[in-house]
């Protein structure tokens, strides 16, 4: 049964993935809220956020093409490795089916996971909101007197803005994934969920390392920069009192979970300090250990074009003499589950393939979306928590459908973007110029006589008006393009004459 036409706007929430500051603005470190309180009213600025930022990105033509090529390269790698065996589409179907099944019994699977995890000696916590997640993590750390934490990549902790929260409580958090460390030092958000620093050139990273890590001026060789970061991060691993990781897959059957990295930073973060906190969204659960085969075969291939990451670590219970805490987080996911049209977005395994293939993402960059997770999946997830703030995102797309076809778990991304458009339209969160244009256009096109009359009038004006009146500053089409020539007779007029009417 189809959902009704009413807007399903969630009530206002506290901490959420609100508008992020642009790269040059440092994230406040002093305990001030890192994001404004949102309201259900949207400003014109918010409705035009992505287009404005995208236009700024596009303005630097050389950089635009550099970024586009860099990200396309990963799409191309994904194409190559997914051709390595004949069963790729079968894996996508199976992955999608396993996720759909899991979501249909998510509460049962989570409860079973918790039971098994606890029996292995882990401590399991539940957090409804991003805020609660931050408080839970902080309280675990504070109760053990932890002041220095190392963290391996977790988009969930990024979504909850964990770092500024912990920092405001006097705890040092070092992001240990190289790309994440780079953006952390630059005090900006990641621009891609798998390659956080894809928007940066090596010279910029060299400059950053010179300013903050003592690198010699002018160093830009990636190998040398990585070596420097290795030494720097080693010290951090050795000095850390706790390690925080994300969770790629949580296995309900066994109570264990899997973390995938190429650098080995999740392992260094958890093998040295005695305390390991693993943060997971509720949708990370899979039913059985053998289901991992499906997901591990498609994850790295979709994300980076590798057959598997260097390290695929399976954690079952704490280290002898150590502590393991698992924080299970909702933060709006259960609400998404209630929406039939959007529930498949919870299949997401955070591979980033949709971003790599998206022609709009590649030409506007992750920061233009203003949310933790950008690109197609981000544009489908973000409006749930704050439709007003993210109203421009479902429109930051041509609905080309490439994302849906690369998604390893078959999320119907481009269909969900269109559904969002309708929902935002009903909630009057679409820019006024579109609503007015649509109302006028709709009125005319619903009446054959009006369509014929105004069509002829429009063509007549276009043929007669001086160029300056047609190509004025409000003609966005005409900025870089010619309008089509307006023919004297429309198809139907010619057809009529032909048929001798």
């Amino acid at each position, binding site marked *: 049964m189809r959902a009704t036409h009413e807007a399903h706007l969630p009530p206002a929430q506290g901490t959420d993935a609100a508008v992020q500051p642009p790269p040059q603005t440092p994230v406040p470190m002093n305990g001030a809220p890192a994001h404004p309180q949102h309201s259900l009213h949207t400003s014109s600025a918010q409705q035009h956020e992505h287009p404005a930022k995208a236009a700024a990105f*596009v303005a630097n033509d050389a950089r635009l093409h550099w970024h586009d090529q860099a990200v396309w390269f990963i799409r191309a790698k994904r194409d190559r490795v997914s051709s390595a065996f004949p069963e790729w589409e079968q894996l996508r179907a199976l992955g999608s089916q396993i996720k759909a099944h899991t979501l249909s019994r998510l509460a049962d699977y989570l409860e079973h996971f918790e039971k098994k995890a606890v029996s292995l000696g882990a401590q399991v916590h539940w957090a409804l909101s991003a805020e609660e997640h931050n408080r839970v993590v902080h309280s675990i750390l504070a109760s053990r007197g932890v002041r220095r934490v190392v963290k391996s990549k977790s988009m969930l902790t990024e979504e909850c803005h964990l770092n500024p929260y912990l920092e405001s409580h006097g705890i040092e958090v070092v992001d240990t994934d190289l790309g994440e460390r780079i953006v952390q030092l630059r005090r900006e958000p990641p621009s891609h969920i798998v390659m956080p620093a894809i928007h940066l050139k090596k010279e910029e990273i060299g400059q950053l390392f010179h300013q903050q890590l003592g690198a010699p001026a002018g160093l830009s060789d990636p190998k040398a920069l990585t070596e420097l970061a290795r030494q720097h991060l080693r010290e951090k691993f050795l000095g850390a009192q706790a390690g925080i990781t994300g969770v790629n897959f949580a296995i309900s059957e066994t109570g264990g979970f899997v973390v995938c990295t190429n650098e080995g930073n999740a392992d260094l973060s958890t093998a040295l300090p005695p305390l390991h906190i693993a943060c997971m969204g509720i949708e990370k659960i899979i039913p059985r250990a053998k289901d991992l085969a499906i997901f591990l075969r498609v994850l790295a291939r979709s994300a980076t074009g590798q057959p598997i990451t260097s390290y695929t670590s399976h954690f079952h219970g704490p280290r002898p003499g150590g502590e393991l805490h698992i924080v299970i987080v909702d933060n709006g996911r259960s609400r998404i589950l209630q929406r039939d049209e959007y529930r498949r977005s919870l299949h997401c395994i955070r591979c980033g393939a949709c971003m790599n293939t998206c022609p709009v993402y590649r030409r506007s960059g992750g920061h233009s979306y203003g949310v933790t997770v950008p690109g197609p999946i981000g544009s489908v997830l973000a409006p749930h928590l704050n439709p007003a703030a993210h109203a421009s995102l479902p429109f930051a797309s041509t609905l080309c459908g*490439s994302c849906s076809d*690369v998604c390893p778990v078959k999320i119907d991304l481009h269909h969900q973007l*269109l559904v969002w*458009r309708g929902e935002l339209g009903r909630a009057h969160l679409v820019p006024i110029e*579109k*609503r007015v244009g649509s109302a006028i*256009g709709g009125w005319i096109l619903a009446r054959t006589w009006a369509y014929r009359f105004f069509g002829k009038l429009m063509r007549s004006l276009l043929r007669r008006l001086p160029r300056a009146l047609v190509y004025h500053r409000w003609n966005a089409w005409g900025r870089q393009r010619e309008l089509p020539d307006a023919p004297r007779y429309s198809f*139907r007029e010619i057809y009529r004459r032909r048929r001798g009417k």
Partner: protein
Amino acid sequence: MSDVALFVPCYVDQFYPQVGLATLDLLDRFGIHADFPEAQTCCGQPMANSGCFSDAAPLARKFLDVFSGYRYVVCPSGSCTSMVRHHYANLLPGEPRLAAIGGKVYELCEFLHDVAGIKPRGRFPHRVGLHQSCHGLRELRLASGSERRIAAFDKVRDLLEGLEGIQLVDLARPDECCGFGGTFAVSEEAISCAMGKDRIADHERAGAEIIAGADMSCLMHLSGLLRREHKHLRVMHVAELLAEATA
């Protein structure tokens, strides 16, 4: 009354009548005499695309009023066809006539390829860059596409390949979006034009003389960019190309 109706997209009717005429002539040439029901206006896509579903719904109803009586509805546009086949359900939930219309509306190339089984013969000695319009490709599945790992097929290409002298050039990115995207072309103008220029550059590097496609909307956008830059590369709808080649 014929059992085949021609559905001409609104912007083709107004700006590219030659594409509508080429479609009609082409069908005629293959023995398919289509009606043009004059009450038609627009499939409603521009409104739906903007999220204004309530403005699009009356147009969807009007479409059903005009076309439900026909056995086939042929349209020289993948995006309009997809709108009817896949997205009218969003606009008119529970509408009983929807079940039937999905099976009746065909984009021109898929109609010629699947229903009429035509293999055009003719001459078109030009270097042609085939532009894969996204809705035709990924919604109507006119071709297999570069993303999916399935046996390759391409209905549009099949229709063109048999033409004598035609050279279909190799593009670096064979099915990347041109950037039109409906209202996107205006509301995200900067990216839209960047995408279109990149497509053009790909065709130029591949040595195309003509960019051909099955959706005039994509071609309108590319043509707009080409003409502003005074470039010689031309655009042609597949209907025009086939009509010329088989004349």
